[in-house]
């Protein structure tokens, strides 16, 4: 299979590989996929408590080149966005940016899932820290 130049670039020079302290109340961690399916993504965001803006994002991915590129791109896009803006990122935008072929669309879906899971984890932590009951998702301060 031929990869697009952007996929190759992200594979060879992945942005923001690493881990953030997962117990930090301002860090949200998303872990999606399964080893037996051939891809697992861990995506983390760190939200600035004063501005509500994601000022750091990290990933680690077990998966094909397109999965690595999708998560690497996602971390690039997440930085500087508010939580709500982050939730608006669509897998189709990742597909378009990386020119993913149809068989690789699931990689972009997984990246979108990872973003949503990371944000959900962050919100849950914030709620717990603020003493809000888990169900009341919208009670947390948003930017």
């Amino acid at each position: 299979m031929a990869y697009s130049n952007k996929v190759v670039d992200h594979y060879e020079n992945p942005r923001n590989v690493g881990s953030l302290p997962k117990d930090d109340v301002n860090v949200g961690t998303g872990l999606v996929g399964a080893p037996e399916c051939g891809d697992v993504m861990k995506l983390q965001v760190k939200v600035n408590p004063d501005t509500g803006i994601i000022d750091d994002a990290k990933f680690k991915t077990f998966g094909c080149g397109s999965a690595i590129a999708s998560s690497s791109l996602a971390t690039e896009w997440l930085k500087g966005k508010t939580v709500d803006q982050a939730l608006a990122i669509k897998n189709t935008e990742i597909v378009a940016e990386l020119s993913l072929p149809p068989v690789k669309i699931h990689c972009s879906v997984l990246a979108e899932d990872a973003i949503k899971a990371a944000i959900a984890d962050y919100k849950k932590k914030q709620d717990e820290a603020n003493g809000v009951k888990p169900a009341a998702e919208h009670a947390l301060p948003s930017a």
Partner: protein
Amino acid sequence: MKLPIYMDYHATTPVDPRVLEAMMPYFTGKFGNAASRNHPFGWEAEEAVEIARKQVADLIGANAKELIFTSGATESNNLAIKGVAEMYREKGNHVITCVTEHKAVVDTCKKLEKQGLRVTYLPVQKDGRISLDELRASITDKTILITIMTANNEIGVIQPIAEIGAIAKEKGILFHTDAVQAVGKVPFDVTALKTDLVSISAHKIYGPKGVGALYVRRRNPRVLLAEQISGGGHERGMRSGTLNVTGIVGLGKAAELCRLEMQKDAERLGKLRDRLNEELHKNLDEIYINGSMEHRLPHNLNISFAYVEGESLLMGINDVAVSSGSACTSASLEPSYVLKALGAGDDLAHSSIRFGLGRWTTEEEVDYVVDKLTKVVQRLREMSPLYEMVKEGVDLSKMQWVTH
């Protein structure tokens, strides 16, 4: 050293220049139809075909009359299985095969199942070999054929062919083996192994693509096959179609070279394969060999690099041609059914690389591959969440994964 490096000799092999040289005259000057009985052009072609038949027969200890030329091993497997099922259907309707067979065997059996044939797919043990007890237990009075490959195309594991042959003989059941990966690479003798039908391919033994052979025993017992391609009655009526004279000459020459050089090649490649294996084990932790190391082709290695996905590995070693059992590298998007059958878990199938060494593999190439692969595996593990979790003491098998 020239890049890219070819280390995928199970997929195909280049034509040996000596094979090409033998073939050349038959494209132009000696272009006759081997079935033309009334002029020298035909005689010349027929003579070349018969020399090739003898060369192939000599490689497997057969009589030349017992070889039928085909378009390749897929056709040979189809002809053997369908030909027997059709010819012996009054005698029985049960065939025994194995889950790790090549698709040319598995899918042929599946098709025949739709037409009423009963098929037993024997499982394999952790080492990739079938259990002879399970084979014996699956035989019924309706069993007409056992078809078990000699060596597997992914993991290189060699099945207990002589033992299977003895069981088949004792029970009066025909025994077919897809020997594509083994013939020409390790000793193979139809008498010692008691095989009745053997599939062979030219392009796996440094011959051209598009030509193969099927050994069909003529004596004790005399095996009959229902033709699957009808026409002019070529090849003892078992396979019609104008003979591919150039291809057959190439197959013959390739077989002769294998017979003469097999031992030397196998010794050299066995050492190189062991070097590849040992050096990778020295450099990397948590790498696992798939299938038996004891009963294995000398030029095969199949390793899973835990916590790293196969396609991303291949991407990192893009100047080395190897294969992976990862789902992402297959057309079906399913991980290798052969590796899954070993029961090691789908995650290890996704992380596997198949190395196939061959006649032109050098020590320098092996060392290059070790070095490159080590670096890529280390780099990918640094970005693998699984590797990180394992190093933190997480038991991955107890995780609840979010799948979709």
